[in-house]
């Protein structure tokens, strides 16, 4: 009970940060996620209940790469909590210290919904999750020095578990080095870079722009030329579109997710989520060989 009362209240914009925070914080933190694992993280409702959660928070973890720009600012203003304001002691930008991909040379929305800071889906690379885990451990230690040894132990355990899994995942995907994949949105760029896959074909013609028939025809052409046998789709993306493309090209649709809980059995478990993603992708690549 006492632990509960003293627990650091952590709010995460999206569930993968919440999962890592829970792994590092253990019993000493209470984690709330704002976005659902199954919804489009670019368009989350700025619900009043989120303001209540933020008003009581000790820590707010955001990606910090503009993914939440359409809904987080009014929530933070509504929460009027100095701890989590920009520059506040509890405000964590997870992208800090991470080399982002796809930083646009110029900001031009005729190229789609570009994120000025770069591609915000960096947590799909487990090496970046390790950076975030270290970052969170430092923040937790700073705000709750008494529990710092526990946070460090949890961080080490998380890192060890992650490292073991990364070796396993790298081995599972090694036979497919250089293989191209098709995804709906450029969500899997970091994942592909880490595991030697090539993610350059998307169902969206430009980031955030819905698929159009001429673009899909082009995608199908590329799939035939490059022998791409899988289309990755997330819970909120149009499975129907992915199925139509897969049917015409003999490919298979692979259900994956960037958020723990978006695939059943992965609730609150970052490593478990990536494990499920890797297994689904590896088996589809093997079948498509």
């Amino acid at each position, binding site marked *: 009970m006492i632990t509960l009362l003293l627990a650091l209240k952590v709010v995460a914009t999206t569930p993968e940060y919440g999962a890592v925070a829970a792994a590092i914080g253990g019993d000493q933190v209470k984690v709330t996620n704002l976005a659902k694992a199954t*919804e489009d993280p670019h368009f989350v409702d700025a619900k009043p*209940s989120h*303001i209540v959660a933020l008003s009581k928070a000790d820590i707010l973890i955001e990606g910090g*790469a503009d993914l939440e720009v359409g*809904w*987080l600012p009014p929530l933070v203003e509504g929460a*009027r909590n100095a701890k989590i304001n920009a520059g506040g002691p509890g405000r964590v930008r997870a992208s800090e210290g991470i080399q982002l991909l796809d930083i646009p040379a110029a900001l031009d929305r005729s190229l789609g919904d570009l994120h000025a800071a770069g591609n915000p889906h960096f947590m799909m690379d487990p090496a970046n999750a390790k*950076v975030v885990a270290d970052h969170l451990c430092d923040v937790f230690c700073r705000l709750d020095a008494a529990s710092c040894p526990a946070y460090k132990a949890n961080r080490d355990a998380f*890192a060890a578990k992650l490292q073991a899994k990364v070796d396993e995942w790298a081995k599972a995907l090694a036979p497919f080095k250089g293989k191209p994949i098709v995804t709906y949105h450029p969500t899997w760029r970091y994942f592909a870079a*880490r595991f030697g896959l090539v993610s350059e074909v998307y169902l969206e013609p430009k980031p955030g722009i819905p698929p159009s028939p001429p673009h899909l025809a082009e995608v199908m052409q590329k799939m035939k030329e490059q022998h791409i046998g899988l289309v990755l789709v997330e819970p909120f993306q149009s499975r129907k579109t992915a199925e139509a493309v897969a049917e015409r090209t003999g490919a298979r649709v692979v259900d994956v997710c960037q958020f723990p809980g978006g695939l059943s059995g992965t609730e609150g478990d970052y490593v478990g989520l990536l494990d499920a993603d890797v297994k689904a992708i590896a088996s589809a690549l093997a079948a498509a060989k």
Partner: protein
Amino acid sequence: MNIARWLTVLWFLFAIGIASAQDAPVPTPTPTPTPAPAGPPPITVASGTAGKNYLNLSLDGLIVVGASTEPDVPGLQTGGHDPSQRGFTVQNVEVVFDGAVDPYFRGQANVVLQIDPDGETVVELEEAYAVTTSLPKGLQVKVGQYFTEFGRLNPTHPHTWDFVDQPLVSGRMFGGDGLRSVGARISWLMPTPFYSELLVSAQNAKGETATSFGGVTGDVMFGRPLDPDDVKSAGDLLYVPRYDASFDIGETQTVVVGASGAFGPNGTGAGADTGIVGIDALWKWKSARADKGFPFVKVQGEAMSRRYEAAATPLLPAETFEDHGTYLQAVWGIKPMWTLGARYDRVGGDVGDDPADPAFQPRERASLEGTWYPTEYSKLRLQYAYDDRTGLKDASSVWLQFEFLLGAHAAHKF
């Protein structure tokens, strides 16, 4: 009047807030994390361009084209940003500046440009305010020129609306430009497990953005010429209390309910006051697997009632008028980027029997809209409305609206 004491308390709280905000510990910079051992280490850099500007700047254009069976479009449409003529209307071109002032305030200004039917460009300082970010105890103070937080629609800008025009009740109670004025507002986010907020605003009570109150000298309300008084005491200001609460029902539904009041002197003569009270509600369902926020269904309604004390004139006795209005609307986000909506509007009440003033006669309107958003930065909306007006011909109108947004990404309030 205890209002002067109230203001003193308000100011005192504000001053305490600033003082304690300044006492807050200096935030330590986040340490740079150590590189990861998994695979090749990521390069450690300070990432991101977010926050590289002191000021976010955006420009929103809202243009409408259409026609109505009623030639007198301004008589039909009660909003200052509604279509103002057959053919094309520039509803507004809104330039928004916003950003952090310092660690204690965020500032925002909305400068609106319009082109009137004579081709003249009109500039309006719609809002320009600072709001505190770091007061303790859930308090927040806003100071400047701002849309009064009365009900759900009044504090919002036209490009965020679900329909081409404002509901009739907004025009009846608050005039064409909504209720807004220069003043200060304090709000308290109450420490309840659910969302619960109490707000009180004190603003100047006169001008064309306070039509039910002081109004503009020379304008006529209920047959009486207006001559609003200057402020002689705190009692001559407009006071607007509001309470709202919100609950989530499961993972996918949210309800917001609110009650507001606006009380102040009106311009018909000494001692004549106006009181407006309103209730509002919103229910929204959004799919747990929402793609770009779709599909969703939202139902929103507001009801308002006004009591207007009209002072005696050499020709007219002192009278009190009571009128009311409501709207109820439903919008269905069918699939990503497509919505369908319907709205029912009605205003009426005891407003005397002056047939020369059709603006105050009872009337009803039904509207249907369909919207396509090519992206979140543009939209195309088709709307049909049928107006049923006492003492005037019924009217059918069709409007096609286009919006484009440049610059900083707009954040959407719920």
